[in-house]
């Protein structure tokens, strides 16, 4: 087909449609590139950089989720440089956030031989659990800032714009405008954000309560008769 182009990934000659990303090209041909912030239902932004690959002739590693395949590209998905970068990214994540609800990332760490103790002095990003509505909780100690929740709340699905980034640099976090509680924001509690969260930072309230040791019958009673009162 005239719309196709040919490139080489890990020594394998591959023909893909024009406009596909390196990640799509690889996955269509059975070559695995790990991803964390990427989700097929949201816009890719190359934030976590775990999908980086080495492209011959390019100075820096390239994020496969957004870089388009081009004719005659020579790509390596598992070069030493790539593997070392991924391992470091994972170790930096493990040093600053709580990965206990992210089994896929923990498996990835094993796979890359990443150590949880590589950066023992790193300041952990910790915050209190935000439990301000009956539907879901927000535990930003487990947030890796993948941006998926913000995107599905905005133009990737819901067009509601209730949450966004707040703070800068190390202080960056997901939050509501003026730090309002969820019921006071434009949030419609669709839970699209909960559906795409990869690390359990956003979690249905009932799952959270079960994990806190509450029994189903205790949880069922909690859902009744309680009224939210606005301080006047």
């Amino acid at each position, binding site marked *: 087909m005239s719309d196709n182009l040919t490139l080489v990934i890990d020594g394998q000659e591959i023909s893909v449609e024009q406009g596909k990303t390196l990640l799509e090209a690889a996955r269509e041909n059975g070559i695995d590139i790990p991803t964390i912030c990427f*989700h*097929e*239902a949201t816009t890719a932004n190359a934030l976590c950089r775990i999908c980086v690959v080495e492209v011959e002739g390019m100075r820096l590693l390239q994020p496969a989720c957004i870089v388009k395949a081009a004719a005659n590209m020579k790509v390596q998905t598992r070069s030493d440089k790539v593997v070392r970068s991924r391992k470091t990214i994972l170790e930096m994540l493990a040093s600053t956030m709580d990965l*206990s*609800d992210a*089994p896929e990332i923990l498996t990835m760490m094993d796979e890359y031989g990443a150590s949880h103790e590589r950066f023992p002095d790193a300041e952990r990003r910790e915050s209190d659990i935000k439990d301000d*509505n*009956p*539907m*879901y909780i927000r535990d930003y100690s487990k947030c890796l800032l993948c941006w998926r929740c913000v995107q*599905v709340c905005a*133009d990737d*699905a*819901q*067009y*509601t714009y*209730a949450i966004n980034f707040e703070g800068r640099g190390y202080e960056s976090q997901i939050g509501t405008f003026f730090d*309002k509680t969820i*019921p*006071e*924001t*434009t*949030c*419609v*509690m*669709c*839970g*699209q954000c*909960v*559906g795409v969260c990869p690390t*359990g930072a956003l979690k*249905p*309230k*009932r*799952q959270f309560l*079960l*994990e806190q040791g509450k029994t*189903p*019958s205790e*949880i*069922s*009673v909690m*859902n*009744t*008769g*309680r*009224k*939210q*009162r*606005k301080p*006047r």
Partner: protein
Amino acid sequence: MIKPDHITTSTCPYCGVGCTLQLHVRDDFIYKVTSPFDSPVNHGNLCVKGRFGYDFVYHPKRVTTPLVRRYLLEGKPKPEGREQVYAISSDGKPIPDSQISNLWDWVETDWDTALNFVADSLVRIYRRDGSDAMAVYCCAKATNEDNYLLQKMYRALFRTNNVDHCTRLCHAGSVVALQQAIGSSAMSNTASQVIMNDVFIVTGSNTSENHPIIALQMKEAVMKHGAKMIVVDPRRIDLVDMAEMWLALKPGTNVPVFSAMAHVIVKENLVNWEFVKNRTEGFDEFLESLEKFTPEYAEEISGVPAEDIRKAARMYARAKNGAIYWGMGISQLSHGTASALALIHLAFLTGHVGRDGTGLNPLRGQNNVQGASDMGSMPFHYPGYMRVDNPENRAKWEKAWNVEEGGLSLKLGLTTTEILSHAHEGGVRALFIMGENPMMSEPNLNETRRHMQELEFLVSQDVFINESGAFADVFLPATPFAEKDGTFSNTDRRVQRVRAAHPPRGLARPDWEILCDLAKRIEARLGRTNSAYWDYKHPEEILREMAGVNEDYAGITYERIDKVGLIYPVPDLNHPGTPTLFTESFPRGRGKFHQLDYVPVMEEPDDEYPFILTTGRLLEHWHGGTMTRNSSLNEIYPEARAEIHPADADIHGIKHGDPVRLQSRRGEVVMRATITEKTSVGVVFIPWHFAEAAGNLLTNDALDPQAKIPEFKACAVQVFPARDGDLPNPEVMLDRGRY
């Protein structure tokens, strides 16, 4: 981190969109709901009801034991007067209520006892008063299989067509109009085709709150595909933010506005003549009736500027792919049929029907209102919209149900509203309600209450004792969606699987099992020689029996819809389904133009009742509230609020959050006011989900003469300031930031 014991794929029990749910279950408890991102209807997106609103299944007030009144159990005569008795404690157990005669107490019993009381009473009344004394409400929330069995039970055993359900209160106007003009009664295209529209009209539908996932697709069409949206609605609904135009018409003035658009299309020669010539009939007569509907005439009646009507008409007519999506604002009027016909005319004139990305699309309100209608849960039709007064149709179903020749009734049955208004000596004596709640959903509830009290025998088959079940003699505990298998047919005709996530709580049983058990007991008492057949092992056998006669479903099997649902008509086992209808012709042949007149709403505002009241629904709640008010959804929207325009609020000195008393000629309610420009001047909006301030105490029970749908969308009210103490729930005051 907890892991599920299993994940069950099923279909959402709320609105008609039909989203795919994955129920994460641990210890027979759903703790999380997700949706696969490749799901055909919702692409992984859900709304608050679908994702979080399933907890009603575990609500302590759910009743899971059969209940009968003490008078039955003790063999006493029925006490005078039927009382509305909940008498259910917070843990779902009956409690004696000293305020009332203890013969009305609920008593827990076993299935045999409860079903024998039901069978004995129904058969006794049938023997004494005949078929006309029997009536049944089927249920738009229950599965196709449940509905099919219930109408079969009443038609085959009690030989009556007094079978209806809440479609009468919802889209009856649209269904009658579509049948008259086209010969069909469903969406012509699928909702996901909205992204193929370049211009679309949304009218009488607050889609963001009532069909949230379709609203997302509408927003996507505007934001990502360059479509232009025209909103025609008295309220400044959420979609207006993204609309090209908003035509803020006065409630109940659809006919002049849409007829004036037709007028513009004709006068400016924007007509698709080829379509009109080849596919329609009655155009010349229609043209005569259209003469008076000038945009200026429509402006005078509706308040929509004539120039806006012209602009909207041109935009829709010139579109490559135009479509119309509508909701209750069209059908719930005493001229609901005419309103829907006015929309159908627009599609006929422009040829915007019969192709992908066009169409006439009534958005159905409930998970299975389409399916319940398809299953013949209606007084004029057998399953598959086969008229009951046609002897050929009758012969087909007599064969399917082993009924002797000429056994089934040719007489048209009573509609939902008529069933209750016929509840008196010599009329309807026994009513069976499966899952519905007429004491919330009927108009003019004070009148409904009187009718309910007139019934001799009432059975409620439900999950909770709701406002209607509280009047019942026997309560049969059924299972919600999470505890049964079956199918739902969504608003765009997609038949999808419902699967049990865990076994029923307590003694509760799936509706289809209860109905089979009951039918056998009734059949034994009637002593009929042939059984209509009730020995199904699995709901699939029920669907296959129905599909043997109903051609639309002929090619649907559980195996074929295991992963992805099929869009009917599916005429045979290899047919891939039919997303777009009417590509070649309409079921009635040519589309028929009708001559319309403007008829005002039955009750216009006057000095005594100066406001127009219009009612509707909220994102967080669903219809009579049996499910959502017994869910955590109630915590995020716990009270009814009356929306009043700031200009009106100023005149009456009402501030945001103040209690107000709304009074109509039929009743009154007290609730807090929300002062908002979302409603128009002179129009008050209230939701009708809240029993303690039930909107339908106020609404008018005037009916559309053809569809018999009540006029929920417009009546006259007065607004008075009230005191906190008058509120049914004075402590609650919750402001949400959402639209």
